[in-house]
C-alpha cells in the first residue's frame, strides 16, 4: 500500500528562554539546529551530534535533554531554556560558582554543563529522598557531559558550592537530607573502578 508523504514540514511553536517562537520547519530539523541556525542561540554546542557528549544539553520543560537528538517538530508546545536563558540578568549562582572554581578550560562544554547542573539541582529538589548530591553523586549525575579538558573535579566543586549554599540557606532542608544519605551510601560508586571500570548502582531501595 503506497502512502503519500503528504507533508515534510510543519508549523512549530515553542517558548525559548521566555520568548515565543513560531515557524514552519522541515521535520528533519533538530532542536539544536533550530536554536543555533534559526534562532542564533549558539550557546548549546554541536559536539558529537549523537547524544554522546552532552555539549548540546538544554532544559525542555525544566528537564535536561540532549537537543541534538530531539526533533524540533516533536517538541511543539515545549518550553525550552538554553544557557542564554539561565542568567538573563547576569550570572546566576551556578554560573558564579563555575567562574569562582575555574570549572573549565576551553569552555566548549560549559553551556551544556551549566544546563545539566541546573537540571540536576532541580531533580534533587523535586525528589529529595532519592537525590545524591555527594561528590560521587554529582559526578554520576553529571556523567552525561564530557569535558575534553578534564575539568571534572572543579565542575563537581562548583556544583557542590551551590548545594552547600542552598543547605546553609535552608538548614535541615530537603537538599541536605539527600546529600547526607548519598555521601554515606554511594561512596562505593567511585571505588567501583577496581573491578574493570565498574560503577555500582546497587543502592536503590537496598
Amino acid at each position, binding site marked *: 500500500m503506497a502512502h503519500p508523504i503528504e507533508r515534510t514540514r510543519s508549523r512549530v511553536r515553542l517558548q525559548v528562554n521566555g520568548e515565543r517562537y513560531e515557524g514552519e520547519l522541515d521535520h528533519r530539523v533538530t532542536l539544536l539546529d533550530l536554536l543555533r541556525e534559526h534562532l542564533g542561540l549558539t550557546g548549546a554546542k554541536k559536539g558529537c551530534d549523537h547524544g554522546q557528549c552532552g555539549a548540546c544539553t538544554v532544559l525542555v520543560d525544566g528537564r535536561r535533554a540532549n537537543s541534538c537528538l530531539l526533533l524540533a517538530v516533536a517538541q511543539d508546545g515545549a518550553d525550552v531554556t538554553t544557557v542564554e536563558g539561565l542568567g538573563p540578568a547576569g550570572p546566576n549562582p551556578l554560573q558564579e560558582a563555575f567562574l569562582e572554581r575555574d570549572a573549565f578550560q576551553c569552555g566548549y562544554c560549559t553551556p551544556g554543563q551549566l544546563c545539566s547542573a541546573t537540571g540536576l539541582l532541580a531533580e534533587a529538589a523535586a525528589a529529595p529522598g532519592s537525590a545524591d548530591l555527594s561528590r560521587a553523586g554529582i*559526578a554520576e549525575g553529571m*556523567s552525561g557531559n564530557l569535558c575534553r579538558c578534564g575539568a571534572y573535579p572543579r565542575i563537581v566543586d562548583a556544583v557542590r558550592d551551590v548545594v552547600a549554599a542552598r543547605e546553609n540557606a535552608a538548614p535541615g532542608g530537603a537538599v541536605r537530607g539527600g546529600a547526607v544519605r548519598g555521601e554515606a551510601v554511594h561512596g562505593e560508586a567511585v571505588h567501583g573502578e577496581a573491578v574493570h571500570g565498574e560503577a555500582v548502582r546497587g543502592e536503590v531501595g537496598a
Partner: protein
Amino acid sequence: MKPFAYLRPTGLPEAVAAHGGRPGSRYLGGGTNLVDLMKLGVEAPDTLVDLTGLPLASVEETSDGGLRIGSGVRNATLASHPLVRTRYPVLAQAVLAGASAQLRNVATTGGNLLQRTRCPYFQDVAKPCNKREPGSGCGARDGSHRDHAVLGHSPQCIATHPSDLAVALAVLDASVELHGPDGTRSVPAAAFHRLPGEHPERDTVVEPGEIVTAVLLPPETAGLPCRYRKARDRASYAFALASVAALLDIADGRVRRVALAFGGLAHRPWRASAAEELLRGADPTETAVRQAVEAELAGAQPLRDNAYKVPLARNLACDVLLALARAARS
C-alpha cells in the same frame, strides 16, 4: 536524512492506522536511538508516528498487586517511581546504570526495549552487516568484536542487545504488552528479544506495525531481594561489557526462588536457567553459587577478542548472588 512525514496521533487505533505496518513507517518514542540512526543513514523512514501523544505515560498498580508501566513512561520517571524503587529495585538500578540523566529524561520504556544494537558495523552503512542488510555478511565476526556476544550467537550475527532495563525485566518475570492491527497480546519479557539465528535483522518478536503499549510487572516478584550490577569501560555513561540482574529469595537457608540474567553477553538478555536449576532448593554457599554460574557459562563460545567476558560475567554473577545471600542471612 531523507524527508519524512510526521504524525502525532492521540489514540491507539489512529497510531496503528498511521503506521500501517509499512516498511517505511517508524514509531517514535523519545527518539534517542531512532533519530541517531536516521542521522547515520541506518534508518531512513518516510513516516514517523510519534507515540508521545498517546495516553501511555503512566505507572499504575494492577488489581492483582503488580505494576503496569506504560510504554511512554520515560526512563527517569520509571527509575524514580516510589513503587518501582521499593518493590522492584533491580529495575530502578538497571535503568539508572544506563545512558545519562539527559538521555533517561527523554528515552521511553518502549523505545529502550526496542533500541538497536551498538555494533559499530551495524551503525556504519559502508560496512557489511547482516542485521542492517541481510546477506551482506557480518563485519564484526572477523573484525572488531571485543564488545560482542559470547552466548547464543550465530554465524550470521554476533551482536549484543544494549538495554540494561530489559535484563532487569527478565528476572522479574515481567511481560510486554503489544497492540497491533490484530488486537492486543502479551509476551514474556524473557522471550521478547530473539536470538539472531538466520534472521539477525529481527531483534524482537514484535510484528510490523505493532506498538509496545506496556510492561507488566507481576505481584510474585514484588518485594523480593534483587540487584543489578554492570561492568563497563568507564564508571558511568557506557554500555555494559557484561551485566547481571539477580533475584534471590531464601527461606530456612535454602533458595526458594532464584532468577539470574546476563546483559552484554548475547543478542537478548540471557536468562541463566541452568544456573537457576542448580540453585533452586540449595544452600547458596560460595561453592554452590560458583558451580551454578560456571555451569551456565560452560556453554559460552567466546570469539577471538572477547573471552574476557566469561570470567567477568562469572565474577559479577557470583558477587551479586553472594551479596544477596549474605543480606538474607543478616
